[in-house]
């Protein structure tokens, strides 16, 4: 039987196991939406295409599945770009289907035409323009394969309207054959042996872990490696939920707003093992003073990340699950040397403990004004261990990373690489769609919230009980902090002059709005929100000029932290 392009699309999505898509209709995808009308695939109608992409992204981050988006041509498609770039920077698997003007009109500046393959080439792992309906099924198969394998990432399929209508026989391919795409999964065993040897000889080892730990689901292997070698672990923003933050070996986050002891450990270590991390500038600070005393082993599935920013002594390309597994196996063959290693590194752990005691993570508490860190600690205390937390971008994001104490993989959804304000609310939406029964909380700033607040409507419509914490400092706080510290307190355009009535805003959409202005209200409001069915927005009026500390000023080494304002 012959199917139309749009039927082939929906059939293929089902073959890929897709049961939910996020999107927004328009003329260039109207045929797809017509077929969706009778399809068993659930479609979540967000209120903005950017929201749809972040929602699919949140869905992907917490499940590990590929997030799927449909958007129309032109403005619908260009609205997806920030979301795609966000996912690309954080290696999130995603397939974006954009409608396109009919093939004969492409290039004619037709109504609602945008060159999506051109626009998204630098922010997708790959993209396709399908010109012939007979290529469609194979293209979808390849798109999903590329999105989820190797270093995951977003893949865009641009689908002209005439291809959606054209018919051909449908057969979904069983296999993919891409001559130019063969990720290396298995780590070279000689390199892994060398890594074991280097680790056994180390006196001051540190494991520096990035987002790859979650995308490879190798959290158990990491814990095993850390524990058997008693190596301290520091996590990047992307890996805060990749290793239990309460673990005695955990140093917390490193880099610009990292802990004192994580940054000192990296500065002083003699062996740094980078695991699924990419030496981002927010992590390394001034590169020529980063881990200068250390030999560096870099394990990553993407060869381009290796030796991109720093010189590496031992590169290992492969899937973390494979490499860490083999490394643990290799080490456990050498019980005696392992014992010796643990003894040899005891002093190192003592030194780190001293750093921890000298400058623990903390903040000045207050009985009179609500401290943002206090709110975050309370949220942590009152929510379940497997609650999924998303954030927007700014100070509230850093405080969440610093104080939330994540314990389970894939529970922290945040825009690390691109730093996209407006990410958190739709990402929480997507997470709640994936896990209707788990607690999902967006920790937001007053500025960021207004970048995708329209998604409140989506939450209410689909009865998604996301809880929103707005840490309202009446500032674009993170930028204000920089202006305070480096621009003489000249708060240029960072004051949110118009106070928003967030409670009323929530109510206008049919959600519940709560507000806390006193310290004593904080716990009450959180409890009440968690007990209230449906989406709830909580606004906390926090100390307005609170700063995120420690902080490494731009251009400084990560050991040169500002510890107090």
């Amino acid at each position, binding site marked *: 039987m012959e199917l139309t392009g749009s039927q082939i699309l929906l059939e293929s999505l089902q073959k890929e196991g897709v049961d939910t898509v996020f999107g927004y209709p328009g003329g260039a995808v109207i045929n797809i939406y017509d077929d969706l009308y009778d399809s068993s695939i659930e479609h979540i109608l967000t209120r903005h295409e950017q929201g749809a992409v972040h929602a699919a992204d949140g869905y992907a981050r917490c499940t590990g599945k590929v997030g799927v988006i449909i958007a129309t041509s032109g403005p619908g498609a260009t609205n997806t770009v920030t979301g795609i770039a966000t996912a690309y920077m954080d290696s999130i698997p995603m397939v974006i289907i954009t409608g396109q003007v009919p093939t004969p009109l492409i290039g004619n500046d037709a109504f609602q035409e945008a060159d999506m393959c*051109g626009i998204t080439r630098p922010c997708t792992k790959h993209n396709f323009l399908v010109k012939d309906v007979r290529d469609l099924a194979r293209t979808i198969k390849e798109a999903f394969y590329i999105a989820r394998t190797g270093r995951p990432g977003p893949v865009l399929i641009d689908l002209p309207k005439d291809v959606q209508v054209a018919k051909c026989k449908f057969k979904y391919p069983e296999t993919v054959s891409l001559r*130019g795409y063969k990720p290396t999964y298995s780590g070279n065993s000689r390199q892994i042996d060398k890594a074991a040897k280097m680790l056994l000889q180390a006196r001051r080892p540190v494991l520096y872990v990035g987002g790859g730990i979650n995308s490879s689901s190798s959290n158990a292997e990491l814990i095993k490696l850390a524990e058997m070698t008693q190596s301290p672990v520091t996590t990047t923003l992307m890996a805060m939920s990749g290793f239990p933050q309460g673990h005695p070996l955990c140093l917390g986050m490193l880099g610009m707003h990292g802990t004192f002891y994580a940054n000192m450990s990296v500065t002083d270590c003699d062996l740094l093992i980078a695991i699924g991390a990419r030496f981002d500038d927010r992590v390394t600070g001034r590169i020529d003073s980063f881990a200068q005393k250390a030999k560096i082993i870099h394990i990553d599935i993407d060869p381009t990340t290796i*030796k991109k920013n720093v010189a590496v002594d031992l590169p290992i390309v492969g899937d973390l699950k494979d490499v860490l597994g083999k490394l643990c196996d290799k080490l456990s063959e050498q019980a005696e040397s392992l014992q010796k290693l643990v003894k040899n590194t005891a002093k190192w752990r003592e030194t780190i403990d001293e750093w921890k005691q000298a400058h623990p993570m903390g903040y000045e508490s207050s009985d009179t004004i609500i401290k943002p860190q206090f709110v975050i600690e309370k949220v942590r205390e009152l929510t379940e261990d497997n609650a999924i937390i998303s954030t927007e971008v700014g100070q509230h994001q850093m405080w969440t990373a610093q104080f939330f104490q994540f314990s389970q993989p894939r529970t922290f959804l945040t825009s690390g690489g691109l730093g996209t304000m407006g990410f958190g609310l739709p990402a929480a939406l997507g997470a709640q769609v994936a896990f209707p029964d788990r607690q999902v909380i967006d920790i937001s700033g007053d500025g960021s919230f207004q970048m995708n607040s329209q998604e409140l409507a989506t939450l209410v419509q689909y009865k998604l009980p996301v809880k929103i914490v707005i840490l309202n400092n009446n500032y674009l706080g993170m930028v204000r902090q920089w202006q305070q510290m480096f621009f003489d307190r000249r708060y240029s355009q960072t004051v949110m002059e118009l106070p928003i009535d967030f409670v009323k805003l929530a109510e206008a959409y049919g959600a519940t709005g709560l507000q806390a202005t006193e310290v004593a209200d904080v716990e009450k409001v959180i409890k009440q929100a968690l007990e209230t069915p449906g989406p709830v927005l909580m606004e906390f009026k926090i100390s307005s000029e609170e700063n995120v500390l420690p902080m490494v000023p731009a251009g400084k080494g990560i050991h040169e932290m500002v510890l107090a304002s």
Partner: protein
Amino acid sequence: MKHTISVLVENEFGVLARVSGLFSGRGFNIESLSVAPSLEPNLSRITLVTRGDDRILEQINKQLNKLISTIKVIDFTGEEYVERELALIKVAAEAESRAEALRIVDIFRAKVVDVTPKSYTIEITGASAKIDGLIELLRPMGIKEIVRSGPVVMGRGAKGVAS
């Protein structure tokens, strides 16, 4: 240092933009670029000349390989290879300089492919350095136009790239 790199790519929509976009997006230098179909009809062969230190070249190599459309990348630096570039050079040639132009053409084993009372158009094939040499000698006579293909290269020996 100068590197000549061959890239075998899937001959598909947008592939050249992927390669050139990679260079511009990441700030890599690109001195010349030539693209044409290869032995396999569905593959194109790109030859490009770039400059950079070892770290940059390693990145260029890896980033090219990372493109889904890339089948193979070969940096010919340090390898045995044949390099050829084609150039057409239009040079002023009047009265007294006409004989001189022909003499230079002869020395370089180039060819005159178009003649007017005031000019010669010269065709030359060879390694890029040889073409540079010819241009230098012709320059004093007054060059009106140059078009160069950029070099193409092939490894010496019996083995082919695709195998």
